[in-house]
């Protein structure tokens, strides 16, 4: 019995198919090695370094590799830092919902109601084009829009709706939310449109022939089939909003402090260990969010 199996193993080891498979695998390994090494050296290692340094000792202008939990204790006992976690989570939830609410009807229109392929592509391209322009310019463009002498106030006053300029529009949490919603909406519209456009037309026709109303069709067919798009969009928006600091820094007038802003200001004053602690907290939050989302959808299958 044993001798037979060994014989067979020897036979298959020499077979051209197995040889070729081995060669292919070696080739795949060689092709992947540079990319994987690059990612480990310049992404994984830096992230591990953040965790490591969060336990270093912070002196006035430097960090020393003497391990301590002092930075963690200071972070956890500071109301500024803890409230930054709260602000980050609040802004994240609001922007996520806003991009979904603002973006879904647009995706529905482009994906379901526009039948002409060329028009469909043109509309999608029109949504994506702002993504190609400078991020910082898009952020700063909200200032002349929302300021007390900005376009919105000007128009509202001309129309006689208000007689005093609204001051809450700029340098407030509101401007940060509006700015982020505009900037990240594209990442919601794109994946959802893609999923809706993929829905088989005959399925919707069948439902209609059977007397289903539009609402039923939407609830029973379109919504469930667009869910992977929503999740993929939510992942994109989440990781970008959670790691944000530039929008808050330029539009909130220092009123909104996200974890990203804490990191930037701590690095600015050479408090590397505190920055690292904030970095680890942010990493934990983002990992939790992505893990949760990936439980719902397999990213690799959707892409």
């Amino acid at each position, binding site marked *: 019995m044993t001798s037979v199996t060994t014989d067979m193993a020897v036979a298959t080891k020499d077979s051209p198919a197995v040889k070729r498979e081995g060669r*292919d*695998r070696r*080739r*795949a*390994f060689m*092709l992947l090695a*540079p*990319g*994987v090494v*690059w*990612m480990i050296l*310049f*992404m*994984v*290692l*830096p992230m591990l*370094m*953040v965790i490591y340094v969060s336990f270093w000792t912070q002196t006035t202008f430097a960090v020393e590799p003497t391990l301590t939990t002092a930075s963690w204790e200071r972070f956890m006992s500071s109301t500024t830092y803890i409230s930054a976690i709260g602000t980050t989570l609040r802004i994240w939830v609001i922007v996520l919902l806003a991009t979904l609410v603002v973006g879904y*009807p*647009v995706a*529905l*229109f*482009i994906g379901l*109601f526009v039948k002409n392929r060329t028009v469909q592509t043109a509309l999608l391209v029109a*949504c994506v084009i*702002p993504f*190609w*322009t*400078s991020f*910082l*310019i*898009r952020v*700063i*463009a909200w*200032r*002349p*829009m929302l300021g007390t*002498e*900005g*376009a919105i106030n000007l128009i509202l006053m001309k129309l006689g709706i208000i007689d005093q300029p609204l001051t809450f529009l700029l340098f407030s949490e509101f401007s940060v939310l509006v700015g982020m919603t505009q900037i990240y*909406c*594209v990442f919601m519209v794109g994946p959802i449109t893609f999923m809706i456009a993929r829905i088989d037309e005959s399925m919707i026709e069948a439902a209609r022939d059977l007397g289903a109303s*539009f609402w039923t*069709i939407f609830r029973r067919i379109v919504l469930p089939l667009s869910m992977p798009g929503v999740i993929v969009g939510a*992942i994109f928006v989440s*990781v970008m909003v959670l*790691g944000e600091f*530039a929008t808050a820094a*330029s539009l909130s007038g220092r009123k909104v402090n996200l974890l990203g802003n804490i*990191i*930037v200001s701590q*690095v600015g004053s050479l408090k*590397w260990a505190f920055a690292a602690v904030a*970095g680890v907290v*942010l990493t934990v939050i*983002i990992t939790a969010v*992505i893990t949760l989302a990936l439980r719902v959808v397999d*990213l*690799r299958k959707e*892409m």
Partner: protein
Amino acid sequence: MNTGILKPTLAIYAAIFLLFLYGPLIILAILSFQSQGGGPQFPIQEWSTYWYRHLFGVTETSRVSQLPVGDALVRSLILAFMTTVVSTVLGTMSAEAFRTRFKGSGPVFYLIILGMMVPGVLVGLGMALLSNFAGIDRAWWGTAFVLHVVYTYPFAFLVMLAIFNRFDRSVEEASLSLGVSPAQTFRRVTFPILFPGVLSAMLFSFTLSYDEFSRTLFTVGRELTLPLAIYGTFSVEIYPNIFAFGVLTTLFSFTLLVVYGLLMKRFTSRRARFSGQEEAA
């Protein structure tokens, strides 16, 4: 489908959405033509190209200092070019590897994708700490460059993966078994199939790197890239010269997009002509 007023309602909504997307940029473009005395808001005192001239330093000295974009622009372009080359090569190699099934492809896939997911401020911080620890000076062509590749390589990889998924290897094998040399096969068969993907991967890498900001912030060292030079001016009072710069940089991105579109169109029409010839024969 009894959609009734639903379709027009959604159409109007989509139009408002586009206005929401483009409105700020339109306002910005209008205000970039503000006159010298006007501020970064309405009303327009007088239409002029003053702030464009100011940007290029061809106006008489003014109280507003010139935007420090000259050297930064050159650095950003070189950096974007380096990033484009490296990430397109890495992305193509990795996607080619994924054509064979191998153990551990799942974790490797997510490792690569993580590069575009992980917030810039985190890897930036990590890289800065790492370079401090290792005693390496931070520089745009070093620490910032490797992070730019970490960010753009996943995009190139995904684009190429999509191309390879549609690439039937038997076409290549047929060419080889008909006695066509490997070099010819690559030029006539493999390259034409891959070219649109490579072009898209390059476009992604270039524009993402050119505009990259959060990864660069902690890793750039003393010499700034273009987005950082711009960001530096945000903390002080802003002037319409930033708006003028915004218009120009947006036009630059559009030019890239148009060049990409033209190359793509020319390429696909050539392929269409080629297949037309085959049909005629």
